[in-house]
Structure formats: structure tokens, C-alpha cells
């Protein structure tokens, strides 16, 4: 009899487990995975779909991602069509109505105003995003707005832990608000300085730090650098007084080094997202590393 009771308790445990299951979140990019870790800790399970060494514009709708999407309760992505090449396919194949729209579908770029919204859209202009530049993770003010919205969304979907989300948001906000002036003070020498970029992925960072973009290695967004275009950049880079040629960790830095070799302006690989280098272990580290590296180019 006692044995039976024991078995029943075990069985109950097995069947009760899914009821108490944690909120499962599918994060398209590592920066949102990191933000979720700040906002939720162990109250949720997070699957991060991509890493810092992948070009999120062109990830494939791999079977493993479909399986992860199938189990998700919440989808957190950059949006603004950044993931248009794979996310719609994942959603259609996963058959998970919870995340296709509504509360389970969270797009970071929708929570803030985007820059670079094109007046007209034409593929001759390269890989343009009609909803504006989606790479919003390198402006701390926008990240803060996104954090607030995301925390509210977590609390909405997982009301039982709402108090935790509120408390963690407060904690994150105070640390983040304290970090912003620190970063701004350290980055003050960068103000007004010019850079040449690999891909137009840095507008938010450059705007925040008051820096200028004087050229782009990609002749058009998403179009790989051509030798003719690179040659035309030699003059621009020299006369424009660029302090660095910047590219993201996932990009092939060969064209950057080619241009660096001909202009004497250093090629600088920035982490771009969490995991992009040793120091960028979380969002704070991402900003620390980015500013450190940019300051390093001044010397």
C-alpha cells in the first residue's frame, strides 16, 4: 500500500511537472538572450537562436530552430525585417500559434523609434529595411525602453512571477542608469570622431556617442564590398580623418584589413552583440568592450 502511494506521488510529480513548467522564450539574437537573463533569471528557459559569429540576416531555418520555436511561449527578436529571411519560415513550419502574433510575439524594434527609415524602397539600393535600421542594441537608451517593455510582457505572460520581473527590472534599470553616464564620460574623447563602417549596422552607436560615419565598405547594404568600391574609399578614409574601420565579429574582416593596409587607419573588430568577444559576456560587457576598443583606436 505504501509502495503504491509512493508510486502515485512519483507519477503525480511527473504529470504535474508540465503545469509548473517555466515560460519558454525563443530569442533570435544573443543581446535579447542576455537582456532576458537580466530580467528573468531562472523563472524562464531561454533558447538563443543565433550566436555573435553568425550573420543574423542570413540564418537558415534549420530543423533545430523549428523544434525550439515549437515549444516557445514567447518570441523575442529585433524585428524591423532583420529576420525576414528565416523567421517567417520557422513560424510557418513550427505550427505554434502562441508566438505567431499577439502577446507571445515581441519585436524589439517595435518598442522604439528606428533610424534610417528609407523614403523609398528599391532592391537596387541593396538590402534595405523598410521599417528602419533594426540594429537597435547599441543605443543604451533604446535598450532601456526595450527592457521596460519586455519586462511588462514577461509579467503579462507569467503573472505568477510578475513581482520578480518588476524587482529584476528595477535592479537592471538602476545598474544600467548608473552605467550610461560612466560610458558617456569614458567615450567623451570619441565625440565628433569619424569612422568607416563595414555594414550600416552602427547608426545607433554612432549617434549615441556623437560620432560620424564617413563611408561604408559595402557599396550598398548587404552587397559584399567590391574592389572598385574599396579603392574609392581610400581617399575618403584618409582625408576624412577616420580613426578606425569598424566591422562586427561575424563579418569577414579581409576587406577591412585591405583598406587598413592602404590607409594606415586601423581595422577594428567590434563585438556587435553579446558573445562577440571575451569581454562581451553580457550587455554591460558588450558596451564596455565596444567603448574600450574604440578608445584603443584613438591612441
Amino acid at each position, binding site marked *: 500500500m505504501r509502495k503504491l502511494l509512493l508510486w502515485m506521488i512519483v507519477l503525480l510529480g511527473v504529470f504535474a511537472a508540465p503545469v509548473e513548467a517555466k515560460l519558454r522564450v525563443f530569442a533570435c539574437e544573443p543581446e535579447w538572450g542576455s537582456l532576458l537573463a537580466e530580467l528573468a533569471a531562472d523563472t524562464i528557459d531561454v533558447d538563443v537562436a543565433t550566436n555573435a559569429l553568425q550573420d543574423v540576416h542570413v540564418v537558415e531555418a534549420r530543423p533545430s530552430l523549428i*523544434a525550439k520555436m*515549437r515549444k516557445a511561449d514567447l518570441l523575442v527578436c529585433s524585428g524591423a525585417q532583420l529576420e525576414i529571411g528565416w523567421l517567417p519560415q520557422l513560424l510557418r513550419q513550427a505550427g505554434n500559434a502562441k508566438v505567431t502574433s499577439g502577446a507571445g510575439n515581441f519585436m524589439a524594434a517595435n518598442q522604439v523609434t528606428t533610424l534610417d527609415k528609407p523614403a523609398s524602397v528599391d532592391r537596387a539600393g541593396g538590402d534595405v529595411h523598410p521599417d528602419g535600421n533594426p540594429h537597435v542594441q547599441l543605443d543604451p537608451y533604446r535598450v532601456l525602453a526595450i527592457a521596460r517593455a519586455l519586462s511588462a510582457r514577461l509579467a503579462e505572460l507569467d503573472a505568477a512571477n510578475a513581482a520578480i520581473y518588476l524587482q529584476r527590472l528595477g535592479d537592471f534599470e538602476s545598474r544600467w542608469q548608473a552605467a550610461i553616464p560612466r560610458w558617456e564620460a569614458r567615450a567623451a574623447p570619441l565625440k565628433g570622431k569619424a569612422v568607416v563602417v563595414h555594414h550600416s549596422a552602427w547608426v545607433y552607436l554612432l549617434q549615441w556617442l556623437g560620432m560620424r560615419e564617413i563611408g561604408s565598405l559595402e557599396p550598398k547594404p548587404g552587397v559584399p564590398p567590391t574592389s572598385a568600391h574599396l579603392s574609392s574609399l581610400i581617399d575618403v578614409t584618409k582625408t576624412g580623418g577616420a580613426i578606425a574601420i569598424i566591422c562586427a565579429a*561575424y563579418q569577414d574582416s579581409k576587406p577591412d584589413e585591405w583598406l587598413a593596409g592602404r590607409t594606415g587607419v586601423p581595422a577594428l573588430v567590434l563585438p556587435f552583440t553579446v558573445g562577440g568577444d571575451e569581454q562581451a559576456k553580457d550587455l554591460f560587457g558588450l558596451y564596455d568592450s565596444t567603448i574600450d576598443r574604440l578608445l584603443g583606436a584613438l591612441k
Partner: protein
Amino acid sequence: MRPLALALVLSLTLPGAAQAARTETDPQIAALAERIRALEANAQTLQKQAAEALAAAQAAQSELQQMKSTRKDPVVVDRSDEAPATAMNASANAFNPAIALILNGLYVNHAKDPLDYRRAGFPLVGEGGPSADGLLLGESEISFAANIDDKFYGQLTLALESEDGETHAGIEEAYVETTALADGFTARAGRFYSNIGYLNSHHTHTDYFSDRPLAYQAFLGNQYGDDGVQLRWVAPTETYLEIGTEAFRGENAPAAGATHNGVGAKTFFAHAGGDVGSNNSWLAGASILHADARDGEDGFSGRSNLFLFDFTWKWAPHGAFKDSGIVLRSEAFIDDRKGVVIDPEDPQAPAQDWDGKRRGAYVEGLYRFSRSWDVGYRYDRLWAASSGPYASDHDPQRHSIAATWHNSEFSLLRLQLARDEPQAHFLDNVLTLQYQVSLGAHGAHKF
């Protein structure tokens, strides 16, 4: 002094007096004067408003300047209370379906006349034959797709093709799919390509070669699609697992004649896949297509079971296939039929019993060495039956190599060389030059 004072008084009072006199005499002018006063007042108000607006604008500008300089407040909109809808133009066009066009052209040089092409043991069915010789316009595709409402998605794909100077428009796919079923279920109805095998559900413009493998040509008439319904389910597992079933009208090869009151073909399929480390992914599947045929294109009447096994392995550094990677893929087909065959070219000939198996397979590898270039090799093989109406001593086989240049995701040029031996003593060397472009909305591709 007095006259001066008088003059002053006069000068001050006279205009008023004169005005008063005129007012009395001309009420029209009075009305006009009244209107002018009103207009003047109005103008003053407007001026005041303009000044206010200017001040407000200046204030806003200075505030913006301040914000720019101090950046204490973010230039962001907290829209957390709003529905997470993507910003859309307010015009009615915003609801138009996504329109995608695929244009495709070829130059093909066959060593042997395509009209003499026979495939030993495998009569040509559907679009499973060789392409014509010379300059050709390939299949042009127009596709419309959109979410219909909160529960349904719809897609229409039209194919335009010219053959012997005539243009044929055909409905390649036209289906409605659910987007809001619970627990990983998705249902679909309409005309669509079956989910069996790997390549079958993929549109030909995503292929690595300019034509389909021989097994697809021989057993499925290039690609099996028909009118029907589909139900599929994705399991809530760590490893991707999808199972599903379909019922089709049974009009197209290998089915024929829409038997069983127009439910002549059924399928079951299962696909599984996952990652191995961060550089490797795989996808494998097993499917069965059960079809009944009445007077099929190849003269067959009876039941057929086609078993398909597919396997894909993709290697790419950090899973980023855009810049470099290797794909290995193979599919194997077993065709098991029982029925009778009447030679379609000689309807008077006596029916022959046919109960047996034929097989086919292909192996292909693709090496992508830059964002712009990839090269591929494919080996095709079919195993004919040794007895019965389809008997043949020769097993058709083909080698193909292709080099493809991608200017962007939206355009490619391909050079393909093939050495095709469809029958004994018939060697067709084929050179194909192909361009293929996609215009407009570009839907995400399946893995």
C-alpha cells in the same frame, strides 16, 4: 494762438465728423469698414497664433538640441502598451499580398535530339523528360502570399510556360493553411506540392541544379502536386520531428484518373532533424505515396506504393551557410506496383500484368566557397525491372556538375554539364546555361 488751436481742433475732429457723415450716407462702406476691422482682428489673431507656433517650434528645437547635447532622455517611444504590430502604411495597398516573381531562362545544348530521348524501363511521365534544345524561356512563376486573417494563410503560385509557341498558364499551388491551430498542428487545403521526400515540397528555383534528379523525373513526373488536404504535426521535442499525412485527388503521376471518387492518392511523411555542434545540421525523412492509377500516362492501371527516404547534411562554419559550407544530400526511391500495363503508344496491344519493384536514387554535394560562388556534383541512377512490361537490361544513369554565381540572393547564373545515359548506346552530353532571378517579395526558404 487761437487760429492754431482752432486748426488743431478742426484737424482732429474733422476726419471723425467727415467719417460720421459718410457713415450715415453710405451704409455699404460702413459694412465694408466693419469687415475690414474684423479681418484685421482676425489677422492679429493669426499673427499671434503664428508667433505662438513659432515659439513652440523654437522651444521644441531647443529642447531637441538639449536632448541631443545631453542625451539625458532617450529619443525613443515606449510603445509597450500598444499591440506589437509592425508599422504599416495607412493606404489600402498595405494589405496587398506579398508578390514574388521568378524569371528563368536557359540555353541548352543536347548532343542527342531530345525527341529521340527514351528512358529504358521508365516511360516519360509528367514533365519528367529532357528540356528542349537551344534558347528557352524556363518556367516563369508568379506567387502571391499573405495572412488571410488571424487564423489562415493563403498562397497562390501561377506558372507560365511556353511550349511550341503557345503559352500555358497553370495553377502550380493555391492553398489555404491554418496559422492558429494549437499544439503544433497545421492543416492545409487546396492545390500544393506534397511534403514527401526532400525536394518535392521545394520549388525548383531553390534547387542546386537546373533540373530535377532522374528519380523525381521518373517516379513523380518531376514533382508531385495535386488537389488535396494535408495535416501535419510538429512534436514538442528537442530534436525536430514532424509527421503528417495528405489525401490527394489522384490526377497526376504516379496517380491517374482520380480514382476512389477523386481521392486517389494518400501520403504519410515523417521528417526529423537537428544540429551537431554549431557547424553541422541534418535533416532526414521517410515518406510513402500510395496512389491508384487508371490509364496512367505510362499505360499503367493499378495500385502503386512509392517509398522515399531522404537525408541532408549541411556543414557551415557557425551555421552561416551564406559565405561558405558544404551540403550533402541523397534520396532513395522504391516504386512497388501491381496492376496492368497497356502500351500507351499502341492502345490495341494486349494488357500485360505488372507486379514488381523499380528503384532510383541520387547523391549530390554542393560546395559553397564564397558568398558569390558554389559548385555542385550530382550522380543519378535508376534501376529498371528485369522482367515484365517495363523490363530493361540497361539502368539509366547521369552525372551532372554545376557552377553557380550569385550576384545577390535575388539573382544567379549557372553553368551545368551533364552526361546522361538514359538507354544503352545513347549518350547525351548536355550543356545548360541558366539565369534565374527573383523580383519582389522574397519569402524565406525552407532548410
